[in-house]
């Protein structure tokens, strides 16, 4: 771990840690989905979409967002520049 990272981590207030940890835990409690299951979902989505259109798997961002007590699955999937022309 870099010196800078160590510095900022030790300075983080415990209330902030509690809040960040709770945000994750509550998301998983509410959706009944573990981070591993979310990763599996992401891999499968990438595979399906890649069959139709060119995407960069590393640029795909799939996450669960909180909106009040609602949870939503947000997928941000940038297309490769020439994907449209090359379409299969």
């Amino acid at each position, binding site marked *: 771990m870099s010196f800078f990272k160590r510095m900022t981590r030790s300075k983080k*207030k*415990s*209330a*902030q840690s*509690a*809040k960040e*940890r*709770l*945000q994750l*835990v*509550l998301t998983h*409690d*509410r959706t009944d989905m573990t981070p591993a299951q979310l990763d599996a979902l992401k891999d499968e989505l990438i595979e399906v979409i890649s069959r139709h259109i060119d995407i960069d798997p590393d640029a795909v961002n799939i996450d669960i967002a*909180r909106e*009040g*007590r609602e949870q939503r699955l947000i997928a941000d999937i940038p297309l490769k520049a020439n994907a449209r022309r090359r379409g299969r």
Partner: protein
Amino acid sequence: MSEIITITSGKGGVGKTTAIASLGIALASRGQKVVCVDGDIGLRNLDVIMGLENRIVYDIVDVVEGRCRLRQAMIRDKRLPGLFLIPAAQTRDKMAVSPSDMMRLGDELRHEVDWVLIDSPAGIERGFKNAIAPADRVLVLTNPEISAVRDADRVIGILEAEEKGTPSLILNRVNPGMVKRQEMLSPDDVLDLLAIDLIGVVPEDQSVLIAANRGAPIALDKESRAGQAFHNIAARLMGEDIPFMDLEEKGGLWSRISKFAGRN
């Protein structure tokens, strides 16, 4: 047009019984007729917190099983006109009462009083189900503490799934100094995480334990900060628009949380 209110939390030891006793006192001191019902069968506690333990003859199971009339089980609190307690049974377990028994009891109590306040046991099993069954409104009580907030979220989810409506939040045992030093979740943080309406913030206050020692609910001590907080919650239950307490110096944390009150 009486109202049945249940306080629940998931986690134990967060202050439900303290809150029920003090809201009973606060509503009764506003001229309301109130009965506090101890729903924690087998772990009776509301009686000692209210200081009425020596006056118990009948309990909630006696009522449900027809061994006494409803009014015989309603212990009158002599400190205030119109305040009563129905104690839990100590030697029975939660299965002695069903959610439909509680609905029937609640409907009978509506004829007797303006407010029925039900103290729920910890957990999400039978005792909790019994306590929420007759409720018109549920208040979830929690502490600014990681496990208590997580359990509160779980309970809120169950209440929504059971179509009990979205509950309101009482945040108890807030230590303003620790919040200021960012060593405790702030009311803002907890509201952001749980995303429900706030009905009260109660500070950490040593007088709560002293009040419990004496069997004189903290709301009887209007000088205490916690007591004031419970009086404010009672006023909000009655529909008054009471600003959230300013526990800190001007302009700090407590004025910021008042913006959440506007969401009600």
